[in-house]
Structures are given as C-alpha cells and as structure tokens.
C-alpha cells in the first residue's frame, strides 16, 4: 500500500517559502538525549541536515590506555549499554585472538547463550522505544517487561542487572549457575509470547504502518558505502551477518536464519529486529542444549587466568600467579589485531595494539552505531519532519557506542 504522504512533496510545487532552520536535540526526547539535528526546511520537508554527535563522548579509548587489560571491561560494558554482554564477549575474543588461546567449549556455549540474551534485550528495547516514540506506549511497556525477565537472568548469572563486567580474558568471571538452563528456557518462551502479542498489536495498526512503510528508504549501495552493518544493513537486503559469514565461537554449529528486508525502509528495520528476536531464541535453545553441565569454564593458563583462591592463600606458586596478573596485569604479546563480532547493531570491531606490557597501548572500538548514525543525514534528507522520529528510532543509535 502506497503511503499517502509519499505521493506529494511540498518542495516539488514551489511555494514562496523561505528555508527555515529547525534545531532538534540534543535534549529532545526523540533524539535519545545525545544527538543534535540542525535541519533546513521548506515547509515541512527537510532539505538539508547537519547531524551532530558527541554529546556522550566519555573518552573510553583514552581511559583504556591507563589501566590493565582486564580493567578495560567496565568501559566496553558501558559502550553499548543495551547489550553489554556482547561487548564483553567481543573484547574477550579480541584479546584471546592476540594471545592465541581458545576458551573451553562450555565457556563458548555459555558466551553465546548470554550474548544472544543480550541481543534480545537490545532488539526489544529498540523496537519498544521505536513504537513508543510513534505513540504506541503499550508495546513499549510489554517489551520492557520482557527485557526485565532477561535482566533477571543476567543478575542471577553476573550479579548486575545492566553493567555486568562479566567477561574475562580466557573465560568468564563465574561458571553458569545451577538454574541457568531452566530459567533461560522458560524466559525465552515468555519473551516469544510477548513478541507475538506485540506483533498482533502493531502489525495491523494503520497508523503504525503508515508511519513506517516507505519511510527512510536506504538502498543497499548506500548502506554498504556508508559502512552499515547488522540489522540496518540486512533490512536493505544485504545478507551480511558475521555469525554466518565468519562464524566465531560455535556459531558455525548452530542453526539459525538471517532475516533480510526488501525495501530498506523503517518498517523493514523494525521487522528484521522482530525476526532476529526469534532467531536468537532458536540459538539460545540450541546453546542450552549443547552446553555441558560441568567442566572448566576458564582456560588454565598461568599468564591469563587467576588461580584458585585457596592456592593463592596457601602456596607461593599461587600467590605469584595471582600477583603477576593482578599487580602487573596480564601481558599480551606485542602486536596488533582487529577482531570483529556481530553485536546488537552490527559489526563491533576491536583494533588492539599491544606493546607487550600489562597496559593496552591502543584500544580502538569500531562502533557499528557511529557509521549507522553517519547515515542519518542521507536517510532523513527529503523526508518530512514527522518522519525523523521513526527514521532515527529505527537506526537504534546508542549514545555510548556512537560517541564512546
């Protein structure tokens, strides 16, 4: 169905209109508090946009150069604060790639399960917020309710609801809890129910569809040239998912599909996320199936992982090992690496440079959001003011990740 507001642009008939400057954000509810758009309008349609980010630049990369490698985790946690676990895993993988070690199978399944849960919370939040900004408040409340269930699991596993610095180089901070599998299975079912409800609530809704369909279309060429990845790229019809094309952890061994959009409009971006929720659920169930109930979670490498506390207190070897890792920080051999994983918004890359000491020399975070937001200008130019909200919402801009 062709949306009505698409068949006529005001600037096609020349009205005697002076171009007018409209400033949206950063302290604007639709801009998530951290982006500023200066738009030049004729009538209601946008002629020129200047998108300004950086209202949440917290100097992560500088701070990472001051601590040990392990002390980087809190920062990557707060980088993408909707799916911190994915960042934790990504950074761990980067360091392990540099050290040339591989974590035990159990840990890999565990990381996948937690990561996919985090991805679900990411997509839930994004779609929920998007719906809310379009005036549908109920789906938002339901999806946040679903997200709370995920956060309960996270809290059970890691001790923190949101920013759990749970990853470690060479493993995880703790092994899975006893009830992890049951709770996760139960939760996944409930979340899928919520998703169904939301679909029933929204997908028949004329207003909702009219505001999304055909709005903010991005061609595959544009998306690729802009360096878009993740749901936004897939919504434009490019089936690029790192979990499929460059499988890491155990993603090569699980079954899941990569949802792809057709037109690349806001609706596709919305639906791709909805679909990925279901795929993540599939992956999680498989992970829980394959994950062993016992066995080591951390690699036993004295350079990397801490010894048992009882060894630390009773034997000199344990004390030295603990001391070396805690006081001097674990040493990563000099060199550089670019490691990439599929995070909530797409390719999350870590470009690490080490000089062999216990302190990172350079930690470059390649944020998917940053490049996606850079496309916002191209997306909303030529649209109406009212379309800015769904377009921006559908990009899922995470301030912390975009500005770091």
């Amino acid at each position, binding site marked *: 169905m062709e949306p009505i507001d698409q068949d006529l642009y005001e600037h096609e008939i020349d009205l005697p209109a002076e171009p007018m400057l409209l400033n949206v954000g950063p302290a604007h509810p639709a801009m998530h508090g951290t982006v500023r758009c200066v738009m030049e309008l004729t009538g209601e349609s946008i002629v020129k946009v200047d998108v300004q980010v950086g209202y949440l630049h917290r100097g992560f990369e500088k701070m990472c150069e001051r601590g040990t490698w392990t002390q980087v985790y809190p920062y990557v946690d707060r980088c993408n604060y909707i799916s911190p676990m994915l960042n934790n895993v990504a950074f761990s993988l980067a360091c392990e790639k540099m050290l040339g070690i591989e974590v035990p199978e159990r840990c890999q399944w565990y990381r996948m399960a937690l990561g996919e849960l985090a991805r679900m919370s990411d997509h839930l939040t994004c779609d929920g917020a998007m719906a809310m900004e379009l005036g549908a408040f109920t789906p938002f409340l339901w999806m946040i309710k679903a997200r709370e269930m995920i956060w309960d699991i996270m809290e059970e596993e890691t001790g923190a609801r949101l920013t759990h610095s749970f990853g470690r180089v060479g493993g995880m901070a703790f092994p899975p809890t006893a009830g992890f599998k049951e709770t996760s299975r139960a939760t996944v079912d409930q979340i899928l129910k919520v998703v169904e409800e939301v679909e029933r609530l929204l997908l028949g809704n004329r207003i909702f569809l009219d505001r999304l369909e055909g709005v903010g279309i991005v061609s595959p060429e544009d998306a690729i040239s802009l360096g878009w990845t993740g749901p936004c790229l897939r919504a434009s019809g490019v089936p690029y998912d790192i979990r499929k094309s460059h499988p890491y952890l155990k993603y090569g061994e699980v079954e899941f599909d990569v949802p792809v959009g057709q037109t690349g409009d806001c609706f596709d971006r919305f639906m791709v996320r909805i679909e990925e929720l279901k795929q993540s659920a599939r992956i999680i169930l498989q992970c829980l199936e394959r994950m062993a109930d016992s066995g080591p979670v951390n690699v036993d490498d004295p350079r990397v992982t801490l010894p048992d506390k009882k*060894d630390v207190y009773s034997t000199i*070897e344990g004390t030295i090992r603990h001391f070396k890792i805690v006081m001097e920080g674990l040493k990563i051999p000099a060199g550089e690496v670019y490691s990439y994983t599929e995070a909530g918004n797409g390719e999350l890359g870590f470009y690490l440079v080490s000089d062999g000491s216990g302190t990172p020399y350079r930690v470059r975070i390649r944020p998917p959001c940053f490049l996606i937001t850079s496309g916002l200008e191209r997306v909303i130019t030529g649209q109406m003011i009212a379309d800015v909200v769904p377009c921006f919402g559908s990009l899922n801009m995470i301030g912390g990740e975009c500005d770091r």
Partner: protein
Amino acid sequence: MPTFKLDDREIPFEPGDTIIRAARRSGIDIPHYCWHPGLTVAANCRMCLVEILPPPGRPALSLAVLSYDSKTGEYVDQKKPKLQPACQMAVAEGMEVKSESSEHVDRARSSVQELLLLNHPVDCPICDQAGECRLQDYWLEHQHKSKRMKDEPVHKPKGVVFGPTIVYDAERCIACTRCIRFCDEVAKDPVLTLRERGNLNEIAVAPGRQLDNAYTLMTEYVCPVGALTASDFRFKARVWFLRSARTVCQGCSTGCNAFLDYDPRTSTAYRYRPRENMAVNKYWMCDEGMLDYRRVHDGRVLRAAIDGEASTVGVALDRAVKLLGGVAPDGLAVILSAQHSNEDNFAFAKVARDVLGASKFFVGGRPPGEGDQVLREADKNPNTRGATSFAGPAPGSMKDFGDAIAGGKITAVFALGSELRELEASVLGRLGSAVVLATHEGPLAERAAVLLPTSSFAESDGTFVNSKGMAQDSEQALGPLGDSRPAWKLAAALAARLGRDFGWRKLADVQKAMGPDGGVAAERGSAQAGAAS
C-alpha cells in the same frame, strides 16, 4: 670477532667470555640467580643451565636417568644430554648452544624453579622485593606449574638483623651466595658466610661482627630475591608504583650513576639503585651515597625568607635587587656551589660577573669526609670541578674567604648553596648583607639577609663533573618542591630585575648560552643505561 651459535643465532664474543656474559653483551638474558657480572662465578643456582651440542663427529655428553612414566606407573631408563651452566662455560669458536630452544633446558629450569620455591613462604604481599623479584618472573617464564609438594615447608628465622642497614629473612633466601661474594670481593670485608646444609642452609654473619662496612646496601641490591631487605626501604613503598630517573649520586665527587626511584603520585623520592657504568662505578654504590637520596627531602629550604622572616619568592627577589644594586663590586664576594649543577653555577656566575661586576669568586660545598679505595672520595661534593671551572681563572679557597671577611674587605655576599666546606660558620659572624640561593639549611642560609629556595638535583635536569673530570647528565625526577625554583632560573630572574635579561626561560636556553662543550673542559661521561643484573 669470533662468534658462536645461541639458539641458532650468531653471537659475537671476546676470548675468555662465558656463554652468559657473551649473551648478555648482545642483549640476551639467560635466566640466572647466582651469577652477577661484577662477581665471581659460583654456578650454584643451576638456573642458567644450557644444552651444548657436541662438536661434529663426537658423541654427546649424556646422563642415564630414570624417568617416571605416569601412564604405566613405571620408571624407565632414559638418556638425556648433560647440561652445562652458562655462567661458567667458556665460549669457543663455532660452539652451538641451545637455551630457549631445548626442551631439556626447559625441564631443567622448571625443576630448579620448583626446587627453589619448595620451602618459599607465601610472602609476596609483605615482601619488598615483590614486583622486581626473580622468583616471580622466572616462575611465570619457566615453571608456571602449581605446587606439587603437600608437605609443611621448612621454617627458618625471619627478620634477622644483620646490621644497622640490613635485615635478613632466611626463609626467602635461595642461598645464591651473591651477598657473600660481594662482601669478599668488592667490599673486601668477608663478614658473611653460609652455614648448615641442604634445605637448612642460611646466611650468617661472622660471630662478634655485624654487617656494617661501607657497602652493606649492595648486598641487598645484589640479592635476587627478598631475603636481604634494607631497613631504610622496608615497607615504605611498593615498587610497581615507583618510577625511575637516571640521576647522578650527590654523595661525593665520584659521581656514581644511579636510578632515583620516586613515587609520581606524591612526588617523593624513595631510594637509589646503582646504574651500571663501567667507567665510573661499575655496578656499585656506597651506603653513604645510597642513603644520600634523603637530602631530596631532608633539611630543605622550601620558602623564601628575608632576615629570617618567611616571604614569597617575588618579594624576596625585589629585596635582593635592592641589596645587590647598592654594593660596590670589589666589596662583593660570590660563592659558587659544588652541590649544584653546571647550568646553575654557570648562570649564577654569569649574572654575578656581567651584571653585578663581581670579581671575588669562591667555591663552597660540604665539608670533606671519609674516602676509600673502592668508590668513595673524600670530597663530598658531586660537582667541585664543574663549579671551579666557572669561578674564573683564580678562584679563592674558602680559607681566603674567611680571611677576607675577617679583614673586613667584604661588605656583601652573593652565594649559591649554603655550605662552607671546612670553614667554620663563626667567621660569618660580622657579615654584611648576604643574598643566598640555597637548597638545604646551612651556615650561609641561616645568616642570609635574603634567602631564595633552589630546587635540588632531583627536580631539574643538570650536568655534574666528577673527580675524574667526566661530565654526566642527571635527569629530572620530581617537580620543584615547595616554592623552590632551579637556581639558574632564580639567577635569570634576578638579572632581569637588575635590568639585564638574558632571556633564559628554559634549561635549553641556558645550555645554549653555555656553548657546545657545556662551558667546561670535560669529557662527556658515556652512561650506559640499564640496571646491573
């Protein structure tokens, strides 16, 4: 130059070199405890064992060993090559040595390490050596296995006081005998020895003696583990919080090269460590020098003063200008300081000569003390030669200065530093107006009409000329303490207020004014950086 192969790498060596020494010269560190480049070879720690391939056509030296097969639970006969200590084995042309690349060597080192840690106490959290301890480093590099012994470790005396400066912990000791050899060979005071046998042996002081020669702290320095600790540094700081600056010891005119370890958070100096320089101090320093770092903080002048009343530097400078502006040049005595760097003395002397027109120059400094044949000089000033070279053709001695004052020829004194060498302070009794730029308290500082705080060697870069006439650079460690400024800067400010601005704002400006040779006829000391092992 002849070469030999170490892990398939060609290493040049000089005739008579041992493997470890040749390797060290080309920057390869073969793990070792008991060997020290400045001491004789003991070869008792067995950490530096290497595998030496037999010459072509000759059978390998091999040992028959029983090795335990964990699968069958049987002991099986095996042959393994006889390893040689790299610290004792002389190198021969074309010799092939395997160190890192031989699994036998790996196993040997791992076993040695395990043996040494067998009875080691769990002390890292309370040990001053932690962070710079060989046991820790080599565990990570060569053993990295956890403890197998389930038995109670042997207990030995802890906290044994060896002397005024050294405390000994027998449980941490690995009996490498470095300290014993040091006392015999370098300090020439064989007061330490090893007693008991096996896992009971420990270092002991000769009966009726205590470890109190002039080089006791070196025993702590050569100790590769935390067995010997200096009572001065004990429990003061954690070494991983410290930073090091390459400085020159201020204790005497030998000018030993030293690392000054300081804490950047609190800008506090904590200790000296000797810095290897074969031309000056080899690997060593004396106790006096090692403890001289305290003068960075002790007895410092940190505030300006006018007639004993505390004041600000700006006001004091104006007052100094008033005083010095009025004096007749021939009534003005200028005292340079053998405690300050060339830059300071140069700037100070230049201001005195060109701006104040002074002609009477003297060189002050700390009174002479005890010297010996090893390192210590009687002249306890780091820069006597440098300062003297700036004091003009015929600098007067301190005695002349005393006479001149007694003769009333001197109406005003413009002094850098506050010490008068052997001259006793009483002669200053009827001294007119004195402007003193001082780092430490002292006779001149007490009697100064205007006292300006100068920063110590640790607070700015500088060059010092030792008794051999070598000019050596010293790095800045801390920022200027209190209100103090580098002396060259105060001198420059003084000149500027007297209407003659030399434009010295950075140390580089002063050094430019000093000319390429640094203003002194002295050969540049080539300081090899890097701590002695």
